């Protein structure tokens, strides 16, 4: 295990190096910089702009900027200073990452809770009316971007709200007066806000996984050892969940590594639609204002987690499937 991890660490160095190089210089390719809008401000003098440029290090050559950034990152774990916030990138990003994490975790719970039973049901009752109905709905959802689904859901919630006066939160993460609430009230308040975006995300994503599970289950169910197990008289429940399902989910376990970076990269445009204070709105804002180090620092963080996540899923795979060995 240890040599495997060590090898992974060594292998990841060129990957990270190339990724950081790419991230940094792709950002540099965009014309202008953080201070461009200030140049159009009649109240800011060119001297002041020049002073800010040297303050932010924007007057240096991009290669010099890159090397300095790299140096700080490697030796001090310092991802640079966000121009807009005038704060270290990590200080800005981490509260947002935590917010996104809650949403993504709840989404994952819903995601598996929807996809696994539906996938198994589809395989067990293959081509039944129920299976076909589920298929139709899922194909429909598969073609829907989640943010669009979110907009539709918001529309319906607003109609319900107008009709009944029922106060269903549709944006943000907390209600007014959150700080004065008791701890349990706070948990419930956040949960209330998370529920709908998490569900929307899970429903629109579950379509894909349900299809995968259904297909894998069908394949395994036809194999000899299942037939043997059934012939030996194991119950239907054991045959499906213990023998079939366990073997069918291996490819899914292999994909778990992707969840780690996904968890911190937030829930994408759904966050924007629900005005949820997660990662995506912040990154979009940073891209808009060309907040160089915030974008670059955050992307590097994502890349690191991707590398770690992949190593983790390799290990997990070895745990689930005894045929695979790491080391």
């Amino acid at each position: 295990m240890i040599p495997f991890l060590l090898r992974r660490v060594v292998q990841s160095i060129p990957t990270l190096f190339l990724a950081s190089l790419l991230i940094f210089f792709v950002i540099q390719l965009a014309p202008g910089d953080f201070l461009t809008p200030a140049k159009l401000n009649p109240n800011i003098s060119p001297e002041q702009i020049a002073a800010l440029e040297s303050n932010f290090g924007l007057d240096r050559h991009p290669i010099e900027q890159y090397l300095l950034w790299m140096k700080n990152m490697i030796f001090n774990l310092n991802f640079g200073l966000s121009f807009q916030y005038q704060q270290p990138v990590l200080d800005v990003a981490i509260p947002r990452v935590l917010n996104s994490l809650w949403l993504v975790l709840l989404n994952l719970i819903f995601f598996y809770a929807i996809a696994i039973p539906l996938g198994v049901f589809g395989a067990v009752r293959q081509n039944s009316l129920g299976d076909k109905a589920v298929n139709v709905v899922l194909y429909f959802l598969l073609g829907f971007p989640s943010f669009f689904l979110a907009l539709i859901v918001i529309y319906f919630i607003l109609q319900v709200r107008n009709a009944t006066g029922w106060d269903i939160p549709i944006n943000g993460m907390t209600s007014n007066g959150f700080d004065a609430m008791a701890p349990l009230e706070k948990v419930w308040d956040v949960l209330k806000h998370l529920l709908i975006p998490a569900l929307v995300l899970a429903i629109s994503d579950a379509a894909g996984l349900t299809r995968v599970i259904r297909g894998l289950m069908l394949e395994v169910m036809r194999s000899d050892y299942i037939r043997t197990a059934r012939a030996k008289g194991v119950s239907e429940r054991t045959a499906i969940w213990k023998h079939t399902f366990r073997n069918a989910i291996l490819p899914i376990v292999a994909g778990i590594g992707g969840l780690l970076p996904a968890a911190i990269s937030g829930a994408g445009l759904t966050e924007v639609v629900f005005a949820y204070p997660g990662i995506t709105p912040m990154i979009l804002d940073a891209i808009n204002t060309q907040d160089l180090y915030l974008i670059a620092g955050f992307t590097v963080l994502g890349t690191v987690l991707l590398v770690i996540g992949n190593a983790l899923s390799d290990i997990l795979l070895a745990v689930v499937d005894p045929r695979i060995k790491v080391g």
Partner: protein
Amino acid sequence: MKKVLTLALALTVGNAAAQSAFVWPAAWTGEQNTANKRGGELRLSAISDFKTFNPFTSSEADSITQRMTEDSAGLFFQDPRNDEFIPYMAASAPVVSNNNKRFVVKIRQGMKFSDGQAITADDWITTWKIHTDDKVGSNSRDTFFLIGKPITVKKLDTYTLQFDFPQPSASALSIMSYAPWPDHVFGKAYREGGAEAIKKMWTLATPPSQIVSPGAWVLESYRAGERAVFKKNNNWGDWNKDGRGQELPYLNNLSVRIVADANAALAAFLAGQLDTVAMRNADDLAQTKKAIDAGNLKAFLKANVSPQATSQWITFNWNKASDPAKQKLFRDVRFRRAMSHIANRQAMVQLALGGLGSETYFSTYPIFKQQIDAGLSAGAPTYKYNLAEASRLLGQLGYTKKNAQGFLVDKAGKVLEFNLSTNAGNTVREQLGRIFADEAKKVGVKVNFTPIDFNTLVSQLTSKGENRPFDAILLGLSGGSNIWSFGSNVVPCGTNLHSYNNPTDGKCATSQEQLMTKLYYQGDAELNDAKRRAIGGQLMKVEGELQPVIYLVGGNYHVAYNERLGGEFTANMMDAYYGHRYFPLTFVK
């Protein structure tokens, strides 16, 4: 005896308090709070998240510190009725000496920060010092300089300040009206750690309980990406009273919710979750009207209250060494007047702004009506939409023949054409450019209109040299005051937004530019309002005749707010410059 003493003491204290309070004129509200309504929350919104609590590093328009001190901190306060400055944190009008360059200001006594510490001269001195430190990078730094020379602030005693200006300035009282930040917080850090220490203070991670405010509001809580809630600064009411001597503000809280975009803000307003929101266009107005008519929303709505304080214009590049023919053309006043005649401003208002806008002909925004009137009475010309006149002027330039495609050609057969760019994504500007290009085609001018990336555009516009990389640019400016409504970076030669002519040495190319530069500084130094406006009128006349920049149209300002709010301005005081209310006088019915 004791009773008498207590009474005497109470009288003295009461008297002192009365002397030290600023009384908000009852005439500043159309609907006064006579029912003693107190409490409640004013619910506002912002489109982008707050970036810092720090007043010195903040670069946003509606920052946390701006919200805390908006209309509630500063030595002087502009009266929306007549634009005049009245003493606010200053105890009285300043004593002016040294040829209008020295201002000695007595500070109102008895004012306190939200943490209970007295507000004294030291706070203004420290604030000025930090704002002007290059290494801090304050956005306000330039406001403390005049023609590149610093304005200095000196403490004469605990309650007296002395401002020294390098030259007289009409904006002096406005410049002096910056919000004072606590010396006991920032001064200490600055003396110990310099600019670096200041930059580390009051970040978003700072607990709101540590934030200190001189204004009406102080931060109560902040949740990143969601909302900032402010509570009233109880010490502020000690020296801010309404017309009946009651403490202000009436409201307990002010909250700013962060929404995804302007559409989300409008939706929240229509759902009754926000108290006021900016109406951007006819669509917003229509939706609000619909909601009011359907009975879903009880709100006040008034369209076209005033023009916005913005401009949209086309500038031609006079520094095109690579193409002498074009340079000569762009430098010819007849060409630029023809271009102004081509601009169909009425169609632009109708088509691009949905009928909700104003035609503009000068760098002064139409909202600054007194200045516009002064310009028109000085004889400032307006080159209105007139294609025949445009053709005549172009004919004078030698463009009399058209080619097979219907475009004007010179003697050598070269088509009269130029490239016009604007920033992609700004739909209004894209429409303005199309309308201009279409009209130009009618008289035979080929305008190659292309929206391009905003940053590229700005770097083209602000570039310096003999050969700058553009033909013509359609863009807009905003910002400016009604005291001296001309841009310090726009009018004088060599400044960075003197967009049409910006050679390496920054010299004027024409005598009119020289005159405009001279008039700009002359007006800025004139303290008498009427005389200053007259100088501005002269400036507008020269500018109008030269037509260096073709001004097009500007949008209008509309007012919408929830009817539960009271304390708004009288109808004739509302405009894009002052808004529709002062928050300290606002109350919830």
